[in-house]
């Protein structure tokens, strides 16, 4: 699998992502500058986490207007895979690659800790290595992760099996008490209509090394590497 990570001014988890991709695929990801207008020939494009443009406007809003985003959209339209994590998820909603929006956390505070995620869709290229209903422990680190969409969109996401992950507790309970940040229907990650774009707020790339407190994020990378090899 060949992959590229797009570098926007202010993103900061490109290193974490590069380490996880290298460990899973054996190949180093190419770093692509936001002002470039073309992508290299890759199977997977990653929009990484961080604070593009400081999140001084809406999170992800400025990056969504970068020259490279046209190429990312073309890549997705051709069926190419896009993994959009945290700030990348925010960019993907701003760019129209995924529906909905990410608002300020309901508790109004930045949250960095391991959370439990329930795998809702275990059949996509990104999640095939998990079991439906499996509970993962993966870190989050965000201020604006409160997923919002209108009722019709949420219904459609669920009917089409496009919710990838939900916030839950260690036993897999999904309810208001286990909702990390106020996200509608506890949604932590969603798939595009063609299931080739995954956006999620948690950081699976920071859960791939036993020395760093867990490996539950590895399944996502193994899934994508197998699907694209």
């Amino acid at each position, binding site marked *: 699998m060949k992959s590229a990570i797009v570098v926007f*001014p202010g993103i900061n988890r490109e*290193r974490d992502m590069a380490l996880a991709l290298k460990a899973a695929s054996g190949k180093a990801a190419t770093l692509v500058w936001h002002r470039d207008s073309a992508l290299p020939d890759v199977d997977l494009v990653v929009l990484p986490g961080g604070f593009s443009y400081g999140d001084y406007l809406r999170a992800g809003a400025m990056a969504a207007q970068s020259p490279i985003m046209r190429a990312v959209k073309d890549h997705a339209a051709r069926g190419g895979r896009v993994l959009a994590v945290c700030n990348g998820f925010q960019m993907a909603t701003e760019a129209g690659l995924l529906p909905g929006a990410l608002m300020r956390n309901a508790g109004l*505070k930045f949250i960095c800790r391991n959370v439990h995620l329930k795998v809702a869709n275990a059949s996509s290229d990104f999640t095939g290595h998990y079991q439906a209903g499996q509970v993962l422990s993966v870190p989050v*680190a965000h201020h604006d992760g409160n997923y919002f969409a209108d009722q019709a969109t949420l219904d459609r996401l669920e009917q089409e099996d496009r919710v990838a992950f939900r916030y839950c507790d260690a036993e897999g309970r999904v309810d208001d008490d286990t909702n990390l940040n106020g996200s509608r229907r506890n949604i932590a990650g969603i798939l595009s209509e063609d299931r080739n774009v995954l956006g999620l707020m948690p950081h699976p790339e*920071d859960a791939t090394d036993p*020395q760093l*407190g867990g490996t539950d994020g590895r399944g996502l990378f193994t899934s994508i590497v197998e699907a694209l090899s």
Partner: protein
Amino acid sequence: MSARPADLMGLTEAEYDNAVEILGRHPNQVELGIFSVMWSEHCSYKSSKKWLKQLPTKAPWVIKGPGENAGVIDIGDGLAAIFKMESHNHPSFIEPYQGAATGVGGILRDVFTMGARPVANLNALRFGSPDHPKTRHLVAGVVAGIGGYGNCVGVPTVGGEVNFHPAYNGNILVNAMTVGIAPADRIFYSAAAGVGNPVVYVGSKTGRDGIHGATMASAEFSDDAEEKRPTVQVGDPFTEKLLIEACLELMQTDYIVAIQDMGAAGLTSSSFEMASKGGVGIILDLDQVPARETGMTPYELMLSESQERMLMVLKPGREAAAEAIFRKWELDFAVIGHLTDTGRMQLRMHGEIVGDLPIDPLALASPEYDRPWVPTPPPAPLDRGHIAAPVDLGEALVRMMGSPDIASRRWIWEQYDHLVGGDTAQRPGGDAAVVRVPDAGGKALAMTTDCTPRYCKADPVQGGRQAVAEAWRNLTAVGARPLAITDNMNFGNPQRPEIMGQFVGCVEGMREACLALDFPVVSGNVSLYNETNGTGILPTPAIGGVGVLDDVTRMATIAFKATGDRIVVLGEATGHLGQSLALRELCGREEGPPPPVDLAIERQTGDLVRKLIADGHVTACHDVADGGLVVALAEMALAGKLGAEVGLPKGDASPFALLFGEEQARYIITVASRYESAILAAAAAAGVPAAVLGQVGGDKLTVTGQLSVALATLARAHEDWLPGYMSAPAAA
């Protein structure tokens, strides 16, 4: 200006006279402003220099000690760790969010200006009493500011400490520390060189913010503190992130001769320091300084403390290539002057010379004072007969676990991104944070900040020793080899002999500990005048310690690991209650001498612990500190979600004193039962007292015959205090 001005901008009459003598005339406004900031306590260390010189600063692994932007130590494999801690106390009290945020920004620049990529931030915070009406607001603002800046800039905030005490009601302490890593042969310094070489300004534009911040930080507060808000700078962490990337990219080339961040006193101190260290003169063309607004005066341009700016001297002819890097990162880049051989700083604007000052007399001949001081009288011994020990020791333990100085800091560190970078091997909540050195096999850095101000107040010499020893101990407890410290000296008004006596005493204690533990000072910062309306803070020499773990897989944590593991206490129990947290929290008394620190025993015990961890037999390790033995056990149990059953340690004191006493140089380790005798033999061989106290297991913490408390009860007390406090309605 041809006559003596009414406002000397914080200079004393004698200092002003000295300035006139140096110039041979009265200074004009911009020149007087420059004298004022350069000779401020904050920039000149005029009260503290004499004493700081006594601190040990050398070791075979020290590459660069105090005097540069940050200290540099060799961590092997051709790599260096670069680190420093710095205060932002006054601004954070006036405007907690921006004060704390820019504190983080400033210390980051001190580290990356030397060529290091910052890999970790820590912070040592002291707030007033939880009951004080401002405390909640200050905690919320400072934590949000540290998080807001550190999270955005993408450097993990991995550790620190927080104390609450009424002595900080009117003057909180915000000490921020950054640790970075650089190739040992690619360190960048600030001494300017090469007559004719271009002086280059990069980063943000200069605005009218923070003018005279350094002078403000060098005076006491009174009730009008909040009127000083315009002296606080505003941070822009996004620009800082770009500045880090642009500077590190430029540092891959050989274009830079010297580089210095613009911190306190902005363009003035950066240009003076670079020229002074290099023994050269400098001409600055102030028309070229990128300005945020039109019509800024030379005075404003020279004294602004706008953030996210750097000054560099480049090799000639490299301007265009360097500029391309900064333009790529969308940052300002301007050649604003060049070096001369005159030994003078000339400021030009609109075709005129607006300032002309000799550099060395200003930068080097700044005042140095031998302030009068009196030693702190030794505290009266604690009369044990008069201590009303709590009847129910279990209830006492629950109260201690939920007391402000011991309660979990989770509410704070969950607001900090402590994982970004993908190398955080030990998260906040343990004895020291551990961050892997990127791409260096299994090598990792351990980091901690420590100080026990109530000890320093009661006995500055013991307190100074203890602050250094505790940092050394916390690094040891994760298995690291302690290498060096940065010190952040927070004290009251040095013009009061008893305050100066606290400073002198703490430095003496620190000196002894640094020598005994081979733990030199490589960087630091002094913050004096931490007083409001004449009331000083507790003397607080905050110590930031850095150590190295050669194999991160051997790292120890505080969490109990397995049922049946033996709990071994290293060190001697004497039941020392003087200045203990239990005496304060449970008996309402802040009395007696602090626990004495025997540095030879400290060294012996720590060296043993480190060896046992390296041998791989230790399953958990925690030093005994605030709250004593039983609090340390409870912390280990809560971290591991496993209880324990132990006996009372042997010693000639009451059960209360043996459990809650804070005698030093003690560690609790756990080992699999099959290694028990080997561990005891190793301790005996090293001459360290060791006793098996009990074993891990169950869901309670039990001290046979004394107390038995469910972990769930301890966890509630420990976890609920801070979030409960922060969400309570503000006091009327």
